[in-house]
Every structure is written in structure tokens, then in C-alpha cells.
């Protein structure tokens, strides 16, 4: 097993399958009377978050606690980081406290990679800049596998702000490894032609309507409000008309096709409320699966000999 989880691109198909299989067993814990396993007793997991993220941090926290690890939340706000401490010094501090794993979210792409040189424990990338978010890709593919029975051979459309999305990048890499076919969809300003080189078989489309009929999975990305004024598209209304998933577009997808969203979603901006709440949407499942997949990752990285 690998020591760190930095990029979805580092995972081969066998490792991803092992994480998925383990997650399936971890999922049964959620349905039990005692939602806890003694597996990581005595291990310490540090959540080091330089960006606000309630859902990912909570998900990692719940996952670590269900495995009986001790969890320390270290957020940049109101901490030594605000007083000017560098990532390296923070890393040494965590090292001195005996962290067995560091879950890091950082606005700079590559920060988790740097961190591996400064701490002895495992590093899990919980999102770095516009680079990667591997556990999100693992939970998304896990969700596809449990809903559609497999990942290989699926047609997956990833729609929206691909340019700034680490979720899109990690998913495209992992889906390629697992044998699915990915189409990136969005306005040319947010899906630049360079994305056609992300993996050998990824394709790019600027016409959402043309990919609907063949899609097994439509994954909507959040339109990041902070991008609205940066002239990536003319108006929110026009964006919704061309790239929003509404009920009419949902009807043109095959009957078995599912709708995914990594959250947090903007209802009425990229997805219609009735689509988000429909039984075809896996948005709530993705959250539950996130805990199981992160439990699996923590177990596989920390469960063996240190």
C-alpha cells in the first residue's frame, strides 16, 4: 500500500479497487448500533485546513473517529498560521506532537507534496489549490460503482468550472485509470482546449445538450461565486441556460443515468432544485460514501506497521 495519498493519478486500478472494497465494509459500520471500530486506537490524525471546508473536514473527522483515532483539528484561522508561521514550521510542530497522519487542505497546489518531506507520518491531500482532491474522486467512483455496478465503460460528463476544479482533475485521472470515458463540458473559458491532453482518452465539449443522451453519469461542478465577476461567462442566467442541469435536460439523459455533485451546490445556478432532489441525484449518498471511503483510506494508510 502507498504511504501518502496525494494524487488520484498515483493510484493504479488495483489500489483503487482495494480502497473501494474496504469502503464497502466500512459502510456497514454506519448501520450498526456501535458505529465504531477499535482499529486506529492510539493513532493521531491531524486535520490541517488552510481553507474553510466544513464538509470535507467533518467527513475526515467522522471517519477517523469511527476508527477510534484521536483527531486534532488545526485550522489556519485564529492559529499560529495567522501570526505568520510557515507551513514548514507548522509541519515540525505537528511532527513534534506525534501526528501519525496529516490531512491537509491548502490553497497552494502542491502543498501536500511539500509536506511529505517534513513529517514522518502519512499525508492525505484533502484538496490543494486547483490541483487535486483524490478522496473526492475515490468517493465519486465508489458512488458510481454502488449505483451502476461498475465504473469501467461508463460515459461520464463533468460539467462546469473545470478550470478551477480539483474535483474535476482528480476524477478525470481516476476515471481514466478505471476505464471510464470522460467528457469535460463547459464554456471555453472554463474548459480550455489544453484539457483535451489531461488523459489519453478525455474529450472536451462546449455543447452540454449533445452529451446528455450518451451519459451514464453527469457530474455537475459548483460555479464558484468568486469567479462570477472575472468574465469567464457573460451572466449567471446565460450560464444556467447553456450549462445548468434543469428538469428538461434530466429527461434527455438515459433512464439509468445518475446526477452527481461534490457540493456545496448552488441551486438555480448550476443545478435546478428539482434535479438536485430527484431520486436520480446521488448528492446525499456521496456525503455518506465520503465517510466510508475516507475510513478505508485512513485504514489502508495507517492500519499496518508504522
Amino acid at each position, binding site marked *: 500500500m502507498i504511504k501518502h495519498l496525494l494524487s488520484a493519478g498515483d493510484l493504479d486500478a488495483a489500489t483503487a479497487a482495494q480502497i473501494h*472494497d*474496504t469502503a464497502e*465494509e466500512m459502510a456497514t459500520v454506519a448501520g450498526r*448500533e456501535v458505529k*465504531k471500530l477499535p482499529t486506529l486506537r492510539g493513532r493521531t490524525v491531524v486535520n490541517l485546513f488552510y481553507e474553510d471546508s466544513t464538509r470535507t473536514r467533518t467527513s475526515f473527522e467522522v471517519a477517523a473517529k469511527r476508527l477510534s483515532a484521536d483527531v486534532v483539528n488545526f485550522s489556519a484561522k485564529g492559529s499560529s498560521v495567522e501570526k505568520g508561521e510557515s507551513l514548514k514550521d507548522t509541519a515540525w510542530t505537528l511532527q513534534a506532537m506525534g501526528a501519525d497522519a496529516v490531512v491537509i487542505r491548502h490553497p497552494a497546489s502542491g502543498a501536500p507534496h511539500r509536506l511529505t518531506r517534513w513529517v514522518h507520518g502519512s499525508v492525505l491531500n484533502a484538496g490543494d489549490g486547483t490541483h487535486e482532491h483524490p478522496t473526492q474522486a475515490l468517493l465519486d467512483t465508489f458512488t458510481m460503482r454502488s449505483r451502476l455496478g461498475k465504473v469501467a465503460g461508463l460515459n461520464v460528463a463533468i460539467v462546469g468550472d473545470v478550470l478551477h476544479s480539483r474535483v474535476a482533475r482528480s476524477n478525470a485521472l481516476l476515471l481514466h485509470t478505471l476505464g471510464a470515458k470522460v467528457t469535460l463540458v463547459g464554456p471555453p473559458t472554463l474548459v480550455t482546449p489544453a484539457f483535451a491532453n489531461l488523459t489519453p482518452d478525455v474529450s472536451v465539449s462546449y455543447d452540454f445538450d449533445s452529451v446528455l443522451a450518451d451519459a451514464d453519469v453527469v457530474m455537475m461542478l459548483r460555479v464558484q461565486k468568486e469567479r462570477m465577476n472575472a468574465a469567464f461567462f457573460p451572466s449567471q442566467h446565460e450560464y444556467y441556460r447553456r450549462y445548468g442541469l434543469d428538469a428538461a435536460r434530466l429527461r434527455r439523459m438515459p433512464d439509468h443515468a445518475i446526477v452527481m455533485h461534490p457540493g456545496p451546490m448552488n441551486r438555480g445556478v448550476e443545478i435546478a432544485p428539482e434535479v438536485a432532489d430527484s431520486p436520480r441525484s446521488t448528492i446525499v449518498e456521496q456525503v455518506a460514501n465520503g465517510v466510508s471511503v475516507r475510513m478505508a483510506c485512513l485504514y489502508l494508510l495507517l*492500519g*499496518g506497521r508504522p
Partner: protein
Amino acid sequence: MAYKTILSDADINRILDRIAHQILEKTQGAGDVVLFGVATRGVPLAQRLAERIQAFEQVKLPVGTLDITLYRDDLGRHSTRAVGRTEVPSGGIDGRIVVLVDDVLFSGRTVRAALDALSDLGRPAAVQLAVLVDRGHRQLPIRADYVGKNIPTSLTEQVKVLLREVDGVDEVRLEDGK
């Protein structure tokens, strides 16, 4: 590796017949019993005991599967182990008599882990233990309620249980140490 056969397929059949009868006797008809096979080879053994108990007294017992990997006390001493399947029968285990079924009883650590795993799944009225082979060398205060065969061993020897569901053949071997 040099080995001698301790139990043949016929021996194993007779032993399972006997243990099935003993379970019926000791639990007064096995009405409340849930069988739990401890992965890997305890699972087919539990299945076979359930088939026999049904043949003898027409009681259909629920059979569960217990994978104890996440409850082991030596996880940190080996590279990461793959997690197997745990399945709890739909009736659950609360108030039932759980009979754990495993192939070999040795140090007792697997059973300790299995007891911990069970207590996270519910609260059985009682837990009993059935094993095909007891080879001694206990490291914990644990004993079996139903024993197929006691085999005195030295610590350097290995007891290998082969079952047709997993290995294609029914046989118990005693192998020389390295």
C-alpha cells in the same frame, strides 16, 4: 514441506456430525442459535454445521460471517491487511446464542478479537465457541465449547486446515516447522 495427515475427509465429516449434535444437545434444540463463521475457513464450517443441524432436526439456523481484521491486536506489527466481509443475519444477534465457528484454536487472540467484534454488533445472550482443531498454546484465558480434535503440537509446527469450498479438498495436516 513435510507433513502428516491428521484428519481425512471422512474424519472431518464425522466430527462435524458430532459437533452439530452437541450444539443441538447443549442448546436444547438450537432454537435461539445463530452460527457465525470466522473468516476465512470458519465460514464454510459454519455453513456445513447449519446444513447438518437442518438435516438432523429440521431447524434452519441463521449463519453470519465475521471478519476480525479490524479488531486484531497485531495490526501495527504487519503490513496492512485486506478487510474481509462481515455479514450479520437479518434477525441480528441480540438475545440469541451465538456460536462462533473457526478452524483452529491456537493462541486465542482471534477469538478475543471476534468477541470484541460481536459486542459491537449487539448483545447476545451467550457466546459459545466451536473449533475443528484445538492445537493448544493458549495466550489468553479462552476455551472452546465444542472441539473437533485436540492435537498436541509444538510451537514450530503448523496446523493446516484444507476445506473443499476454499482449497478443493477436505484435510487437516500437521506441517513441520521451517
